[in-house]
């Protein structure tokens, strides 16, 4: 690698190491606002106490410079790579992996990664195909955006896929999302963000659901048909009464985000990916010259 590439690889590695820990310690302002608002509108006694405890916990994490939740998750990154960014994605991946390991060892963070059959721990939150990185390539640009989404297992275990048929329509989509969230109950640490992926294929619908949970709380899809579905699902999900931590109440979800892809005329896939109340995310923008701009709002 040239000197420029070496420096840039190091900048990506440093950014990843910072993002992973930052995301775990300091949850974004949009989420803090949503939790505070939820606390004020919750009327059930246990539900309100749960939300007060959550808000207090976020404050303690900040005061003690500690992570919010002990589940440091699996490290998931999304990368938007500019066509002219001078570092190849293979090297970006390597830098993200080493950055994840450094953050895990230096902090220290709990090592969650295991071989899926032997269940042996693979070390510092990396392993075969870990971290997970999603890629998007942007023409006519020379920058790199990296978003780190440490994904806890309590919420990831509450992931659901249904291949609805076209005749099920939007009604089928809504019914499946509602059934999934009622069935999940308190297990995924509600109230969180419900991510829904519709269209594409089975695998792509789930990818879209994951993209949806990584958006700032309450943002709306630019497609008005999809935005309307987000609003309707948000209202209906909060009518179910599951409530904070599944103990009953008014606030079951903080937000519902939907991402979509066009699909085959005979397909109507619906994927649900849940994000717990500790909806951790942190982003960095890197220039071709290696300057890094850390970002809370992305």
């Amino acid at each position, binding site marked *: 690698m040239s000197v420029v590439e070496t420096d840039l690889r190091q900048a990506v590695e440093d950014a990843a190491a910072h993002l992973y820990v930052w995301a775990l310690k300091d949850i974004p302002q949009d989420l803090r606002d949503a939790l505070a608002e939820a606390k004020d509108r919750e009327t059930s006694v246990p539900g309100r106490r749960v939300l007060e405890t959550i808000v207090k916990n976020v404050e303690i994490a900040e005061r003690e410079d500690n992570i919010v939740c002990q589940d440091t998750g699996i490290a998931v990154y999304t990368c938007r790579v500019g066509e002219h960014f001078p570092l190849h994605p293979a090297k970006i991946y390597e830098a993200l992996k080493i950055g994840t390991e450094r953050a895990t060892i230096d902090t*220290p963070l709990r090592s969650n990664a295991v071989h899926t059959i032997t269940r042996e721990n693979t070390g510092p939150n990396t392993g075969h195909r870990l971290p997970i990185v999603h890629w998007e390539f942007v023409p006519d640009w020379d920058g790199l955006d990296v978003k780190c989404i440490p994904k806890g297992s309590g919420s990831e275990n509450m992931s659901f896929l249904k291949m609805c048929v076209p005749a099920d329509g939007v009604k089928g989509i809504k019914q499946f999302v509602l059934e999934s969230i009622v069935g999940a109950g308190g297990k995924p640490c509600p109230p969180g963000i419900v991510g829904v992926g519709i269209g594409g294929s089975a695998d792509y619908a789930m990818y879209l659901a994951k993209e949806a949970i990584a958006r700032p709380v309450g943002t709306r899809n630019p497609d008005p048909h999809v935005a309307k579905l987000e609003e309707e699902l948000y209202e209906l999900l909060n009518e179910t009464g599951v409530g904070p*931590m599944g*103990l009953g109440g008014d606030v079951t979800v903080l937000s519902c985000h939907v991402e979509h892809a066009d699909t085959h005329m005979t397909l109507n896939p619906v994927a649900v990916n849940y994000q717990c109340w500790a909806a951790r995310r942190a982003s960095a923008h890197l220039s071709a010259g290696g300057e890094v701009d850390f970002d809370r709002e992305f």
Partner: protein
Amino acid sequence: MAEHRLTFPATEEQIRKLRAGDLVTVDGHIIGIRDRTQIRIFDEGVDPPLDLKGAFLLHTAPGVRKLGPGKYEPVSIGTTTSARMVRFTEPLGRDHGVRAIAGKGGLPDEAIEPMAKYGMVYFALVGGAAALETTQIEEIEEVFWEELMPECLWKFRVKDFGPLWVGIDSHGNSMYRDVQTEATKKLEEIVAKL
């Protein structure tokens, strides 16, 4: 809804006084346990290296910093989803005299009967509130089966541990069953109007 303060290990008589929905704060000793720990005890038939009579079991795999041989300090100690481990409820009560199981998200309805039969309760913690819970852990006194890290068997000394709700009591009541029953009814109404 009553409020209680309990020190663990506890007796059956103390546990029988608790009702679903009550709020509890705990002092004393609690035992950290998780999937692999219980697979070792019940599926692999290895006796736990400490007495669980009267114990409070916390579903957890803590984040820790190693200080020396067998000695750790807490970094982040929270709780995990309990439902995965429901099948261990009955043998924990019947064979080991465990009095309380704590975690988040509740235990499915199959836990209600053994909890009533053996005099046990399920305590609900706020999942994700690990920064708070870590401040309530005074010390990690002992750790067994370190090779299962972080799913070892942990002995913690705690002060003001909570808030905890009695999610399932020893009289056949479950907050989770009640919430699910209502939510399922509500779901049917919503779906009928879609």
